[in-house]
């Protein structure tokens, strides 16, 4: 736990020592309400809820989470500090988890920056605050899933741009798989079970029920598994660099 805490602190500080966290938080603080306002017509729906925000949030997270996680291992490889990290008494799981938690903290801060919209809804009407809180919880889980996948892909290369492109592509597939457009196309050409399976694997479908304020065990297991799989893959990829023969 000591090593986990030490790496978490370092990673979190690293986000703020460079412009990355500030640029990310500013971009999110502008983009998320803009989507809700201009695309989702937040104030024209006549309803006191944040549905327009959560409708577009997955697409925003799909791009911004890879931007946050692309440096996780790619930067360590690029600067050569991975060797120093591998020679330190830090379990790989602790390093991977600490990097993930630091990025997740920034993502959480970004979500908090949209709270003024929530406060505005309470000022304008009587929204279902429990449902909105559940949707925020779902958004945090979705962000965690994207971050874990992006961290795994960051471990495949020393180039942060390549890591970003790969991760955005993976997150796009994970998200778009749940779109009615994709599901209808699959259902038209393949037996219905394939479309159901695809919908089950889609992060968008899983987020959809949380967005409506419904927490199900299956959705929780899905997101926790997604995070676990991403971090496990990142650890395995980094560990292969030791090139063990035993």
């Amino acid at each position, binding site marked *: 736990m000591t*090593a986990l805490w*030490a790496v978490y602190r370092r990673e979190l500080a690293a986000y703020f020592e460079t412009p990355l966290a500030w640029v990310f938080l500013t971009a999110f603080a502008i983009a998320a309400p803009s989507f809700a306002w201009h695309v989702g017509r937040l104030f024209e729906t006549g309803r006191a809820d944040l549905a327009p925000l959560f409708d577009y949030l997955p697409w925003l997270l799909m791009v911004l989470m890879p931007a946050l996680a692309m440096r996780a291992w790619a930067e360590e490889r690029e600067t050569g500090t991975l060797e*120093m990290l591998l020679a330190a008494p830090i379990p790989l799981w602790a390093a991977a988890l600490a990097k993930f938690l630091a990025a997740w903290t920034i993502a959480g801060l970004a979500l908090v920056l949209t709270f003024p919209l929530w406060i505005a809804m309470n000022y304008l009407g009587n929204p279902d605050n429990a449902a909105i809180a559940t949707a925020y919880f779902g958004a945090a889980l979705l962000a965690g899933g994207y971050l874990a996948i992006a961290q795994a892909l960051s471990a495949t290369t020393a180039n942060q741009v390549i890591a970003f492109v790969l991760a955005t592509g993976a997150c796009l597939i994970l998200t778009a798989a749940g779109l009615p457009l994709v599901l209808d196309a699959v259902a038209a050409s393949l037996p219905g079970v394939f479309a159901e399976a695809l919908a089950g694997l889609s992060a968008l479908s899983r987020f959809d029920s949380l967005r409506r304020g419904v927490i199900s065990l299956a959705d929780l297991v899905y997101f926790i598994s997604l995070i676990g799989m991403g971090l496990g893959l990142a650890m395995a990829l980094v560990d292969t660099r030791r090139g063990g023969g035993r």
Partner: protein
Amino acid sequence: MIDAHDLVKHFGPTRAVDGISFSAQKGEVVALLGPNGAGKSTTMRMLTGCLEPDSGVASIAGHDAVRARRAAQNALGYLPEGAPAYPAMTPRAFTRFHLRVRGFKGRALLDAAELALERARMGEAASRPIGMLSKGFKRRAALAAAIAHDPAVLILDEPTDGLDPNQKDGVRDLIRMMAPEKTILISTHLLDEVEAICTRAIVITGGRIVSDTTPASLVAKAPDQSLAGAFRLLTGHSAEQATAKPRRNRKRPA
């Protein structure tokens, strides 16, 4: 304290390290010498747990560097080749991070960090981002982090590379000062460094040890009674062979 037993490491078809065995005890400062690509850094990486050997055993302070990696790494201070460090961090923060990872807390952490920065002669540069420092200061920042937890074993890959003569003397003084209480393994291309601070010199070429003796005995082997002469004698032939091999396989143009 350092024990390498029949270490072998391949990178693809290349046998980078080919059965290296040696041990070093407390009080010894051992130099790993050899031409570029001889296997010095790979050997060091296997000792530090960064790389796992294909076969053989590397151990630090009695702990297997693969099977008891954490224990081995706790007893170890390592300065990797090129002295990599996080550019946005200050040397002070970087040293404290290394200590925190090893369980240091509170006053002990702050004191150990300041002592290491002082020993590495960081001065006011300790508070500036590493990315803005000169090559010499960057190397000293990484050295401060490597020695901060007062490890029993130090593995330093080219510790004085890029330093000016005064800085080199400073690092050599530091190594001499720490030597009686530690086992120190350094790799270097600077033969005067071997004569100045090392009690033993291991010459590696083609992934194999071709000599393991004191610097004085090594000098005695050379026709011109110099370390450079001994180095050329021990490594020149295989280096030529290594460069000649691809030429033999190359097709002649028609």
